């Protein structure tokens, strides 16, 4: 499955079109990839209260995008991948931090008390603040980093919070973008990096959730293949029912921004609603919600009115 340069250019052109940019931008992307290949733009990923789902998901990529991935991950420093260990890893990390000019990517929430997440003899919060200081841009990868997610769910035993919330508390200002999802989907994070590396600015965002418009402009509901059944009030009674809307099973599609319903997951193979199981709103700022996941259409409808 070796991709030729022509194929790659063609692909990057269509990627540009997809992002609402002129096709010629494909060339700019190719140029970026060349720069990345030379190791010019670096990406540091640090993780707090995370599950590693996001970094793994980022690698589940195929097609010409796979080659991008290989080029891109070459520039990544992440403890799950690093050959070095212990002090040597921390040294390596701080060397890249000192050089500056990198895209900082965070994974996971930040605990309210330092002891709940330490790394290399330091609290995660300290590493985060150090890394933010010299970063050019900040990308919060996944729902936990973006909005708090599961660690910050009701009860919140560790007083976990999102990265933007933590930075605000500490009076730190940095241009950032959220790329939510539990976990993030591969193309969402790769395209965000590619965009930033090419244009040296953040992609246009949907301000309601501070996430790139190219993936989170509309709510899932409006592009859903079951929308016609919603408009006819035909509702599924159990998961797996065909030709029915899943609202009565708790579907959060109507209150969640995302492109799952047309881009789908795992290289387009499937996604929740197509598989007959309701959207649980995993990229929603309120995920995992207080109300029951599978029984509460009322809450979903209440959310609908806000739109």
């Amino acid at each position, binding site marked *: 499955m070796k991709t030729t340069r022509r194929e790659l250019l063609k692909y990057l052109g269509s990627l540009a079109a997809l992002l609402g940019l002129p096709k010629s931008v494909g060339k700019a992307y190719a140029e970026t990839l060349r720069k990345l290949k030379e190791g010019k733009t670096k990406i540091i990923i640090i993780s*707090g209260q995370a599950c590693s789902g996001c970094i793994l998901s980022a690698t589940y990529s195929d097609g010409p995008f796979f080659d991008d991935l290989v080029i891109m991950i070459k520039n990544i420093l992440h403890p*799950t991948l690093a050959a070095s260990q212990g002090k040597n890893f921390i040294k390596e990390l701080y060397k890249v931090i000192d050089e500056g000019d990198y895209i900082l990517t965070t994974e996971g929430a930040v605990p309210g008390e330092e002891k709940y997440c330490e790394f290399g003899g330091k609290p995660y919060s300290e590493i985060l603040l150090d890394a933010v200081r010299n970063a050019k841009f900040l990308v919060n990868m996944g729902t936990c980093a973006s909005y708090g997610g599961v660690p910050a769910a009701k009860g919140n035993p560790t007083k976990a919070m999102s990265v933007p919330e933590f930075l605000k508390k500490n009076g730190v200002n940095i241009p950032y973008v959220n790329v939510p999802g*539990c976990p993030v989907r591969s193309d969402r994070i790769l395209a965000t990096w590619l965009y930033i590396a090419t244009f040296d600015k953040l992609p246009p965002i949907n301000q309601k959730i501070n996430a790139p418009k190219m993936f989170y402009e509309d709510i899932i509901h409006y592009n859903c293949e079951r929308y016609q059944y919603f408009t006819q009030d035909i509702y599924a009674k159990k*998961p797996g029912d065909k030709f029915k809307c899943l609202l009565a099973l708790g579907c959060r599609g109507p209150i969640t921004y995302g492109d799952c319903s047309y881009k789908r997951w795992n290289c387009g193979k499937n996604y929740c609603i197509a598989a007959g199981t309701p959207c649980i709103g995993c990229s929603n700022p309120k995920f995992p919600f207080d109300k*029951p996941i599978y*029984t509460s259409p009322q809450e979903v409808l209440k959310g609908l009115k806000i739109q």
Partner: protein
Amino acid sequence: MIKEISPITRIEGHLKVEVETSQNVVKKAKIVGEMYRGIEKIVENRHFMDPIRIVQRVCGLCCEVHGLASCKAIENAINAPVEPNGDKIRDLIICLNIINDHSLHFYQLTLPDYIDFSVLENVPLFLKNPPKAPDLIRDKIVAKKFLKKYLDSFKLRTRVCQGIAILGAKTPFAHAILVGGVSTNIRTDDVGFFVSLLNDVKDFLEEYKKDILFLAENFKHLFDIGKGPGNYLSVPHLYVPGKVLINGKEEEFDVSYVTEDEPKYGFIKTPRYKGYVVETGPLAECILTKNKEFYDLLKKLNVPKEKANSLMGRLLARYVDSLMAYRYAKDLVDSILAKGNNIYWKDPKGLYEGEGYGFVKAPRGALIHYIKIQDSKVKKYSIISPSTWNFSAGGPVEIALKGCPVESEDLVNVGRIIRSFDPCTACSIQ
């Protein structure tokens, strides 16, 4: 002298180790888990079906096993039947998860401990600073060959994950795994996909076998270190029986003998079986099932049986586990029906009560979920994951580290032994 590795990289999550050494040998080791979210607490008082999705988020690596263990615990608690075809589909998801996980462990997490990729030009940033080990392979041709495999294994995993998505909606975190089965409808062409996928997996496993044998040949001295407690445990699921081996005596696994104490240090709880420290994982399973494949490989390598309990033994067993998962998956694909309705759904609005266990054979070994439901809400939730067994205070890993030679400041062999257990810190602490 006290030395430490903090952080331990190339694992899931935040972990450090402190070792007390004398005359360049580890006398005592202390494993500390450094990240806590309190997921068991978070699901308390929530609707009883919520854990399936929330507890699934314990770990992004072995997520599908937590989703299933949670479903099984709930099914056990409320006496919910499982649609047979849906049950097989769930098991197929787990088999693919196992293959996926082991390939990550070998090619990305393990190899940099043995092969110095930094001898090559233009290597990825994260491979530029290998651990400083005297026995690292520094041959350029070998490094080049393995770097290619390192990168190619990403491709295989993407394919395997597409398979999981077809069955389970998406991955990580397959949302189609539900109480009573799966919501997915399986079409005839989906079955075709799996036939072709499993062919690719077969080719991949042949390479994996060559590569693990190459490593074992070149690092035979690593059959001499990393000896665990010699007590083993597995839970009944897929191709593995519920068995325990304690002081050389074999017995059936009985969950009522499992105890769980609060952490002595760090955040990892300390589970014991009848009060004994037990190891779980592919090595335990190979030994408990007297796996022929595994012992044949040892023989081929000219390594006596007794040395199975070692660092290299664990890496070898992980390959064998991938092979077992592949074979089991193949049988499943032959018997899964292309049809809809793969779930017996329990109306979540009903009133439910009860307590139950869910057992799943996870990539890292025995996974146990426990739930107590009252008024359709979670009264208590508890997870004992494979890494909780292995990484607890005074547990198998600390035992395996005793006697580990310390050749350089970098504590390379300490890191290797820890990684041979494939730590998943998020799982062990939640």
